[in-house]
């Protein structure tokens, strides 16, 4: 081995603590990049492969009832490569051993086996017999949740008749990677099932013989999706079309889109922060090493090493730090991606796992880490390279302190000499002090942004569950019911209060902008489910007007007082022009609200309801469910109490994980910055501090100077950290906003206080570690060394 390489390795070993502090920060960047970018690609690739192999459709639509004879016309739409029609419906399930009802989504299977589009994968058992009436295949997660195997039997209320259904096999489908039932906030595999039923049986159950009510289209590569959707809507309009949509609105797909988008944002935002901090730390530490090794650099050049060789020597020292960071990052990243893959396995149902982060992502992360360390090292390495040998052999000139405006200000403060030394040192190296402050501020910001999420979710839950939707359960019907159904529901066991609610599918237009949504209308005086604005006031839509969620209004480009066109879908497709009465801030979904009588009148129907909200006496819950399992026309139930609990449980768990991860990150950043900062100061000031000791200063007096600088910078970093934390939180709320949900910006004083405590505490620990070195300082040896 070359002598210079031996020096390199020994230097690296000597600097292990500082190298480790940097490597941990760099490793964080590598690990997060590996996890977020790696999983982003893995998820996207897995999904793309699944969609490709199983021919996931491009356009979807549902109607009330359309004749099969319409299919050739649909197939003739330019750009359509394949058409698959089916019968779909929602049923209430009675599962042996389960008190509550469950909801089943029925999808018909063609006579000749598996459909050509959205092809499910048979995971166990066999396909149902096309001629049988009591056979079904179910989605695998549902079977697993209940321990069902082929041959087991469940009951379903099909068109008012309770019928036993034998499970012949289990499926996974590209349509249901994220399987979420109506009204649910997250997958509930026990309470929601997908049932694949032979075409004939499904048609008989839903009165669809010779007809279909669901259709999927595969498009050619260059097809114009929007154009196809318009043409399909035109064809389905006479048959009660509810409006066609593309993959972007398909529920399962849009949830995965949101997750992929989140991973992508994370890969774009967080790792650069870590790489930048690492570069700064490398810059600071290497700059000091080059200053210390000034005469060795001169010697290397005198001996005949070229500038490039000297430069490379120091770059390689940074390279070693980067390698340590890469190794740590790869280990942590592999573990994190594995943990994330396990988490995804709970939420997403893929038939195969490409959950392995590919090797090129590992390679990319290593290259980025090396470049970051290299960029940090380049200034010091170039300084070493450009140092003239003759100059290098002479001792460096002392740093130029001069009386500046600041000094006069400091003088006026009548600071003690140690305080003056601290203040002057900070002002003497303003860039380094500034970057240290910035680094520590980022640590504060990371903490703020992590804890902010907790508070934001609290606000969402409060708004959605305790202000707006206060019902204990929702009963949904397969078809809209006359208001007399309310009386029927009121007679069910345990029901304390009953309120109806009407949903009308509509396409809202404003200029060239349009959005398909479900308009909600509730009879006057409803109290269980209400529209509540950001200030907690109940909003009641006035007659002949519409109230919109603010995010929906933004998408349509309207404000209060503007008029929008409301095109009703699913029945007579009439369009009405309505003024926007008010906007409300909402965090779930894109709501639009109308007065009950207005909605029925515009839709030209006698007053009807789509679902009923109820308040329950929980003691009678079992009796209620027993009756619901046999209730005709019921499509499903949502138990809000359970939804609330599972949502809060999941969130509480996630919040603990997230807060731990981010607090660790914040501590690592803080220690990396504060430890190296104090360490470099000790190195620069060893002589000065030793002189003070010789002059009679005590150890603690001397360490105040050393610790004072770092702690003062840490204090200065707090306000900036709060500001940055606010900005990052704001960016996160913007990044998380989708049609599905929005995150409010909620920042409490406690959030800032906690972030500051963590960062100041970690800074203190870091400087105390350095203080131990100061205590062991050999006064005589230090004074002898030639600076």
């Amino acid at each position, binding site marked *: 081995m070359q002598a210079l390489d031996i*020096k390199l390795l020994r230097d690296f070993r000597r600097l292990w603590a500082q190298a480790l502090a940097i490597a941990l920060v760099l490793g964080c960047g590598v690990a997060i990049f590996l996890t977020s970018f790696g999983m982003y690609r893995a998820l996207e690739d897995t999904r793309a492969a699944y969609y490709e192999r199983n021919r996931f459709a491009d356009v979807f639509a549902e109607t009330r009832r359309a004749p099969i004879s319409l299919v050739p016309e649909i197939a003739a739409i330019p750009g359509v490569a394949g058409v698959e029609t089916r019968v779909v419906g929602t049923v209430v399930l009675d599962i042996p051993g389960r008190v509550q009802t469950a909801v089943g989504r029925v999808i018909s299977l063609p006579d000749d086996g598996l459909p050509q589009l959205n092809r499910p994968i048979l995971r166990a058992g066999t396909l149902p017999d096309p001629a049988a009436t009591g056979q079904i295949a179910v989605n695998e997660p549902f079977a697993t949740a209940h321990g069902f195997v082929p041959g087991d039997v469940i009951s379903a209320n099909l068109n008012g008749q309770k019928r036993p259904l034998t499970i012949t096999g289990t499926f996974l489908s590209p349509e249901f990677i994220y399987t979420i039932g109506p009204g649910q906030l997250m997958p509930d595999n026990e309470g929601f099932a997908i049932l694949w039923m032979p075409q004939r049986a499904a048609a008989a159950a839903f009165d669809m013989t010779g007809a279909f009510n669901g259709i999927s289209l595969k498009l050619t590569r260059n097809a114009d999706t929007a154009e196809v959707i318009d043409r399909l809507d035109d064809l389905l309009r006479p048959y009660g079309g509810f409006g066609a949509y593309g993959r972007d609105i398909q529920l399962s797909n849009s949830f995965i889109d949101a997750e992929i988008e989140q991973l992508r944002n994370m890969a774009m935002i967080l790792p650069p922060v870590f790489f930048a901090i690492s570069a700064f730390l490398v810059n600071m530490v290497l700059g000091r090493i080059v200053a210390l090794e000034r005469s060795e650099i001169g010697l290397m050049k005198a001996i005949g090493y070229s500038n490039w060789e000297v430069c490379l020597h120091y770059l390689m020292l940074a390279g070693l730090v980067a390698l340590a960071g890469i190794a740590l990052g790869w280990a942590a990243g592999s573990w994190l991606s594995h943990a994330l893959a396990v988490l995804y396995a709970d939420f997403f149902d893929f038939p195969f796992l490409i959950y392995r982060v590919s090797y090129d992502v590992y390679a990319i992360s290593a290259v980025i880490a090396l470049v970051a360390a290299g960029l940090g090292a380049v200034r010091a390495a170039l300084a070493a390279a450009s140092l003239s040998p003759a100059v290098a*052999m002479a001792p460096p000139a002392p740093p130029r302190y001069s009386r500046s405006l600041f000094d006069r200000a400091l003088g006026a403060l009548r600071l003690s000499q140690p305080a003056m030394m601290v203040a002057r040192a900070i002002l003497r190296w303003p860039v380094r002090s500034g970057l240290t402050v910035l680094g520590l501020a980022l640590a504060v910001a990371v903490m703020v942004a992590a804890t902010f999420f907790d508070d934001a979710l609290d606000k969402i839950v409060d708004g959605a569950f305790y202000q707006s939707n206060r019902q204990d359960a929702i009963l949904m019907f397969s078809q809209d019911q006359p208001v007399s159904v309310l009386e029927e529901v009121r007679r069910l066991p345990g029901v304390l209060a009953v309120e109806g609610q009407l949903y009308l599918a509509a396409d809202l237009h404003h200029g060239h902008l349009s959005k398909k949504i479900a308009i909600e209308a509730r009879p006057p005086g409803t109290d269980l489910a209400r529209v509540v604005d950001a200030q907690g006031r109940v909003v009641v839509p006035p007659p002949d007007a519409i109230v919109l969620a603010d995010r929906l209004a933004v998408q349509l480009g309207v404000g209060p007082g503007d008029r929008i066109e409301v095109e009703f879908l699913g029945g007579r497709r009439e369009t009405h022009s309505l003024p926007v009465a008010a906007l409300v801030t909402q965090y779930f979904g894109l709501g639009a609200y109308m007065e009950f009588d207005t909605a029925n009148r515009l839709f030209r129907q006698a007053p009807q309801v789509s679902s009923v909200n109820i308040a329950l006496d929980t003691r009678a819950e079992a009796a209620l469910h027993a009756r619901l399992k046999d209730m005709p026309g019921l499509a499903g139930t949502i138990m809000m109490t359970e939804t609330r609990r599972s949502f809060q449980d999941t969130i509480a768990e996630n919040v603990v994980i997230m807060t731990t991860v981010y607090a660790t990150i914040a501590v690592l950043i803080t220690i990396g910055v504060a430890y190296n900062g104090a360490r470099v100061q000790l190195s620069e000031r060893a002589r000065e501090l030793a002189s003070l000791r010789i002059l009679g200063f005590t150890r603690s007096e001397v360490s105040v100077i050393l610790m004072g600088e770092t702690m003062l910078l840490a204090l200065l970093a707090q306000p900036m950290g709060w500001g940055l934390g606010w900005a990052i939180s704001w960016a996160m709320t913007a990044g998380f906003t989708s049609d599905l949900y929005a995150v409010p910006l909620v920042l409490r004083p406690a959030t800032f206080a906690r972030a500051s405590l963590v960062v100041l505490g970690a800074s203190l620990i870091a400087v105390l570690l350095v203080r131990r070195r100061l205590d062991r300082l050999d006064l005589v040896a230090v004074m002898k060394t030639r600076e």
Partner: protein
Amino acid sequence: MDRPIFRTEGVTKVYDTGGARVHALAGVDLDLFGGELAVLLGPSGSGKSTLLNILGGLDHATTGRVWFRELELTGLGDRGLTRYRRNHVGFVFQFYNLVPSLSARENVQLVTDVAPNPMAPAEALALVGLSHRLDHFPAEMSGGEQQRVAIARAIAKRPEVLLCDEPTGALDSKTGVQVLEALNDINDRFGTTTVVITHNAAIRKMAHRVVRFQDGRITGVEENATRVAPHEIAW
């Protein structure tokens, strides 16, 4: 001592330190010959170190010309000077300038790694009488030993010139003499042109020639008719 190995013509060196311009060399004309041991004598700040740095290719002259044999050093760029130092020059410094993280052998190896035709590090260390200290680190050796490691490092590349800047400056008389003997020995044995800078007048007695410096100029050159062996020198 036939033809000059170094030749300088009107060399000046001006340092511009902020406001004041310091004339470190104010026109130096000097020939140094192959195989000779020359002592440059003068007080601190007389310009002798500056001249040595220029001869060694560590620094550029402000004006004037310098030749090493036929090679004009003043015409060389950074890359050319590096090659010149690597191939032809050995340095010994007052503060030894050993790399603390490398052992004696590894410090010498630092040179043999890049020189075209070096001797083995152990051989160079044997020449300065340090065969028994090969794997010791600088912190484990006395000042005299450290300086002899530095000499071993300088001669390991078999240089044509050995430039020594106050090689005994940080040593006591006894260890200083040991170092001078090592230098004298190398000069005798390999005919290496050796230039020793000192402000210690006693050392002049071991030289072939003595060049006196004052205020950036040469004030006199004298030849020693009879040289004194280093062990007879004391200060």
